[in-house]
Structures are given as C-alpha cells and as structure tokens.
C-alpha cells in the first residue's frame, strides 16, 4: 500500500443533520428532469420535443460543439415539458415516467474492445458525460486521451455520504468492469484515493488495475482536484479525467448488462429533514418522493448536493446529474439584534473570535443567512488555510477579476474547480462569491484557448 498523504489545511464544518446509516427501499418516482446547468460550458441542441416518447437511454440533446456527446433520458416516459428561462435559455427537460422501456446497448467485455469501440459505446449510451476533465472541470472532450484518470473514494464535504457504506450496498458487482472500461481510455494510470486506513469493502479493496492512494485531513481532502494536486498536478497542455466512484459502477453496469442505469445511493441530510438517511435514487429523479412527509416545519431550502457547492432546487426538483446527496437547511431570512457582536456559543466558525471554537460540541445548526454584507477583500492569510494547494487563492481571484489570462494560467487556473474554493468562500468575512468568480475565470480560459 501507498503512504498516507497528510493534509493539514482545510476545515470540517460541524454541521448538524448527518444521515443515519440506514438504506431505505427505493420509492417510486414519476417525474424526472435533466438540468442543463449541471454541465457548465455546454451549449445544447435538443433532439426531442414535448410529447415525444423516450426510453431510458434515448438521447434528449447533444453538445453543439461536440455533437457526438449525447445526453440521454434516465427513464422511460414522455417528455412533458422543455423549460426555458430568461432569453429562452434551456433550463430543464422534464420527463413523466411511463412504462419500462430501455435501450439495449448490448453486453460487452471492455478489455476485448478497442479504445474507439469503448468510446463509441460510452458516447451513444449517454454515459460519456460522467467523465469530466481537468483543466476546467467540464465534461471530457472525446478527442483527447487523458494522462491519467482520478477517482475519489471518499467525500469530506459537510454531511457527505459515507462512501464505504454506499459501496457496500450498491447493486451488482460492476466496479471492476468500470475500472476496466476506464483502463481502455487512458495510457496512464487510474488513481483511486481513499481515506487513511483504506476501504473495508472487499470489492474496492480487491480492485485491480488501479493505483491506490490514501489521504488524511479535513475537507477538502476528499475533493478529487486536491488529490490530483498532491498525486500528480495538472500542468499546461495536460488533461486528466475524473469520475465519481458510483459512476464507475454505472460504467461497469453498462458493459455488464447493456443498459444505461445510473441508479445510485445518496444521503438525505440536514436539520430540515426529520429522518436523515440513505436512499436509492437515479440522478434526474424528483426528490419529492423521498422528501414527502420528511420535511421539517418552517421555511427550508432544498439543495441538490452539499451545502458548499450544491444547487438550490424546488422541494420536488430533480437530483443533479453528479450529486450524491440532498441537503435541506432552514432559510436564514431573519434579523439578529447585534448579531455580529455575540460571543457565539452556538455559532460554529472557522474564526477563533467565536467561543464555540473552545467547545467540544460535535455539530451545530446552521442556516442560509449571509451573516453580513458584501465588502472588498480585507483579511489576508486565511484563505490559504482552507485550500491545501500550492496556490495563492486571492491572487488567482484577482487575476480572474482583472481578466488577465496569462496571470491566471501562471497562478494555477488549470488545477482548480469552483468546489475547491468553496471553503474560502465560506470563511470569507467580506462575503464574496468566490466560486462564481472561479467559474467565470474557467469560462474565460475556455474561450481564450479555443
């Protein structure tokens, strides 16, 4: 086994509402949606119209720039609505579930196929978008061969699911096939990062064809971008791919069964739900079913994903394409008298000016209040403490704000994704939108490089 890479920097946010390790049986879902915003940088071309019948695996739309990348329906049914937002920008394709028709892509052993055949199968089956690339943290471009593939087998985000628990309960033994699929796509290694101590799940432990790494330390140690930085950082003109571990299973399932089936296990968490537990669900499925009769009293925010990087959805909105959890938190739309001056016994904080820092308490209730107003950057030396990378966060942010492409490149834009800056954003006393700035910087790079 490899040595443990120890990360000191970062922060575990002690948020209350962790899921109990109980997996609930699947609930029937009759509404699905595929959201365009889940794929940054995508310009979509629709392949279906409202009223069309689709099978699980039927293409809904494709990428205008890379038409071979298809995005397919996760379920059999009828297109109910194609929602557009301001300026008629595509927002979501909504599908009413009906019947159980699936496109059969055929069973195959990836190790007996050529790279082109494997790619072709992934592209037509709509499984390709589970592959994402660094730089830019976008859907992988089919023309490139990645230097390596990185998989994170643990999640350190607040209230994140226990990946070991998930892997022990996932349907079927497709993980090794999934790894085999990936091995056909790169000439380099497949890196799998685990928490110190490794996995207790036999299927993960006994994987072949991967290089294991172990990490210890607070969030964001589980972010694949941080792991890449410490294993083999991405430099200019290099491309690596990343895949969520549950999607590796889905890749294997595609080749073992012939069907596009991304069913996964997610954690439903947060103080806004009565019974935080694990659920079986397919990305795109409405979370209304699992939330029904489970939402707490009061005004809540439902988030697909974790509290730092997730997307706000309606109480019956659909689970994001890449998400492995749903978080429900109380909204913070209240006034607090002299709130900035309280000693902070019940206020978890990164900052040591809160008494809570001295308390042994394990979890704190939190809400969506901004706790202050937007200001210019004043504090220094703290953003670095929650970003375990050899990168100067504020210098990169300022280069992005100035639109200085060369400096952005110099300061490490290729290595980062917005999720890596989420903690900087969380602790920021100036309340800046750092993740949004990082994404705008990445978008600018994509534009400049094409």
């Amino acid at each position: 086994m490899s040595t443990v890479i120890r990360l000191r920097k970062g922060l575990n946010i002690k948020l209350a509402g962790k899921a109990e390790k109980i997996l609930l049986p699947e609930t029937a879902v009759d509404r699905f949606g595929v959201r365009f915003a889940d794929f940054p940088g995508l310009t979509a071309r629709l392949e279906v119209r409202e009223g069309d019948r689709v099978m699980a695996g039927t293409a809904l739309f494709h990428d205008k720039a890379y038409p071979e990348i298809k995005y397919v329906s996760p379920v059999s049914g009828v297109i109910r609505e194609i929602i557009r937002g301001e300026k008629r920008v595509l927002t979501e394709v909504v599908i009413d579930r009906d019947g159980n028709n699936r496109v059969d892509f055929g069973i195959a052993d990836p190790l007996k196929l050529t790279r082109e055949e494997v790619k072709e199968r992934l592209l037509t089956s709509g499984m390709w978008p589970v592959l994402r690339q660094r730089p830019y943290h976008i859907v992988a471009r089919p023309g490139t061969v990645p230097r390596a593939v990185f998989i994170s087998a643990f999640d350190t985000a607040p209230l994140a699911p226990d990946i070991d628990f998930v892997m022990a309960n996932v349907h079927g033994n497709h993980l090794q096939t999934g790894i085999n699929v990936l091995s056909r796509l790169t000439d380099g290694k497949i890196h799998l990062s685990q928490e110190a101590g490794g996995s207790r799940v036999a299927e993960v432990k006994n994987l072949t064809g991967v290089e294991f790494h172990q990490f210890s330390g607070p969030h964001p140690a589980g972010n694949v971008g941080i792991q890449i930085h410490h294993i083999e950082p991405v430099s200019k003109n290099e491309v690596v791919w990343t895949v969520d571990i549950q999607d590796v299973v889905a890749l294997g399932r595609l080749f073992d069964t012939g069907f596009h089936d991304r069913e996964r296990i997610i954690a439903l968490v947060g103080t806004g739900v009565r019974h935080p537990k694990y659920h079986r669900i397919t990305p795109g499925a409405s979370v209304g079913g699992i939330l029904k009769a489970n939402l707490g009293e009061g005004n809540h925010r439902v988030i697909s994903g974790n509290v730092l990087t997730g997307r706000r959805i309606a109480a019956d909105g659909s689970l994001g394409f890449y998400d492995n959890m749903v978080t429900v938190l109380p909204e913070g739309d209240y006034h607090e008298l002299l709130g900035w001056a309280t000693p902070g016994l019940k206020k978890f904080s990164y900052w040591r000016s809160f008494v809570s820092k001295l308390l042994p308490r394990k979890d704190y209730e939190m809400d969506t209040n901004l706790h202050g107003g937007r200001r210019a950057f004043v504090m220094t030396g703290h953003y670095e403490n929650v970003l375990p990378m050899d990168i100067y966060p504020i210098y990169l942010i300022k280069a992005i704000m100035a639109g200085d492409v060369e400096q952005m490149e110099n300061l490490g834009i290729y290595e980062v994704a917005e999720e890596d800056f989420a903690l900087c954003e969380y602790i920021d006393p100036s309340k800046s939108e750092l993740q949004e700035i990082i994404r705008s910087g990445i978008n600018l790079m994509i534009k400049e490089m094409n």
Partner: protein
Amino acid sequence: MSFLLDKMKKMEPLFEKGGRFEKLHSVYDGFATFLYVQDKVTTGGAHIRDYMDMKRTMIIVVIALIPALLFGSYNIGLQHTRAFGIVDWSLMQMFWFGFLKILPLILVSYIVGLGIEFIVAQIRGHEINEGYLVTGMLIPLIMPIDVPLWMLAVSVAFAVIIGKEIFGGTGMNILNPALTARAFLFFSYPGWMTGDKVWIEGLTKGGAIDAFSGATPLAVAKLDGIARMPSAMEMFVGTVPGSVGETSVIAILIGALILLVTGVGSWRIMLSMTLGALGMGLLLNLTGGNEYTRIPAYYHLIMGGFAFGTVFMATDPVTAAQTNTGKYIYGALTGILVVVIRVFNPAYPEGTMLAILLMNVMAPLIDHYVVQANIRRRVKRVRTA
C-alpha cells in the same frame, strides 16, 4: 426588542430610491446593519456562510485598542500632575482628567472620518465600510494630546480622502490611513508633532515646574544622552511622555493577545518585526558608531511607538504584505528600518511611523516576488514532466 425592528422596517422605505431621505441611504444602512444582522440569505455558491463579517473583525481590533486607550487616559493625567507639580490627585482623578481630554480627539476623528465615509458610500452606492471604526480609534491614540482639534480634523480628512478613498476605499489603499494622518501632521505642522512640549496636556501654554521636561524617552536619548532616559520598567509600564496610546507596552501586549487569540492580527508580522528590530539593535550594539548605537537592543522594543506600530499598524492586512512568506520579510524589514531611522537619522528621534509607511509602499513588491516564486515552481513542473 422587536419594536425596534418594526420601527426600522417602517422607516426603510423613506431611505430607498425615491424615498424622502434617499440621500441618506448609506447612513440608514450603516445604522440598520449595525443594529441587526440583516435577513439577507445566500444566493449562489456556498449556501452557508461563516458568522464572521467585517463588523466583527473591525470591532475586535477596536476592543484590542481599549487597554491602550484606558492607560493612555490615565497617563495623560499622570504626566499633567508631574508637569505642574500636582501631588494630591487620585488615580481615578488622573484617569478622568485624561479621558475627558482625549474624548474630543476621538469624537472629531470619528465624526470627520465617518462623515466622509458616509458621503463616499452614498456616492458609490456601496455599504459603509467598517475599516474606519479602527482607523478612527487609532488616530487619536497616535497623536500628541495637545494637538489642536482643527488640525486633527484636517489630517483625518486628508488621510481618508487622499490616503484611502481615491484608491477605491477600504481594501484598496496603499498606505495605512491612520499613519497617513499622522504623517500629514508631522510634515505640515512639525511644531505640534515634535519637541518636548506637545506630549503633556497644557504644557504648550507654559507654566510647568522648573525641573520638568516633557520630552519622550527617544528625544531624551537623542538630546540628553542615554544615561538620562527613563528606566526600562517605566517605559514598559508606560508612565512616560508620548503619544496617547503608545507609551504602555503592557496595555499594548494585552491588545496583541486579543488580536492573536482571535486570529485577526498577523503573528507573522508581529514576530518578524520584533525580531528584526531586536536583531538590528544587537548588531548596532556590536558595531557601534554613534552614541545612539549603544542603546540596549531591547530598549527599541519598549521605546516610542514601536510596540504600538508593531501590533496595530504594521499588521493592517490591507497595507501589509499579503502572502505568508511576504509577511515575514515585510515585518523583519520594518523592524530593521525602525531602528536604522532611530539611530542614524539626525532629524527625527522616532522611526516607527516612517518605517511602516515606507514598507507599506514596498509590500506589493515583496508579494510580487513571493508570487513569482510560486509561478516558477509551476513552470518548472511542466518542463520536468
């Protein structure tokens, strides 16, 4: 307390666009957000945010200044009794005498400074920046107690407008605004900022007892020789003439502790600046040169404005170096410069203010080289890969 909130909500439309007091929106907003953390929720990115904000950050610094303010008040009284041969004042009498003398300085500093901040915020359509809460307290503490109020007002206006706002406001300024105010006075009205009269309340009007000299320890060393300086203990406790807040190292250390425990002040700068000054002092002790080089190195840490400057001025995150490596270099160079100016400059006995201002200007350059090193590491990686 909800009647307060109701009242506030009721008043809000008056200050909105089109309301009767539209032009006072920034003032309303400043007070409303001061009174209540608003009901604003996160809209994008992280859905939860830390409870820390600029108000809390700045207030912590103000709290850290209070020990220096309290001791400074007492010391004004104490020095006054010494100068005028008063023997029967109690400790509280001295304190209240001093406090009432410094109160007008504080009021003028806040009224002029915040007034300008409110106007600028209104013009720019920003919320009020809390930075001036700290600056407004720092300025009276680094002034001689007898400074005329109109001079104070002019220097505050100069510091806020020329030192800060023309650069884009809090967060964008190059020079520490409080030191800018002091430097402005120092060069415009040197008679009020140096000498042996201005540090003691009432002394400029004359009438002191014969044997009394109101010179600061630094000036004593320069003019009368090292042997005539107050004892180290006196300088450490702070019962010597000087700017209001700078004399007591003990009070400043309490403030330093508050800044370090809360993580608001940079320990890197405080440590490296202290070591820089101490190292330079020791070096001069060894080499010799002039009379002044023989001052024990540790005296530099407890004399004049060094302690105050190290804890409250050099650590200003906006004007200091911003990278961690840069902070060590910035701090050490500032410490060295303080001693160099003190020892080798014939014109001014004190060097802290000028050293920090000079290093404020150099800080971006230091950071530039630190960041360049980071860039080189990244470029090297590509070549070897």
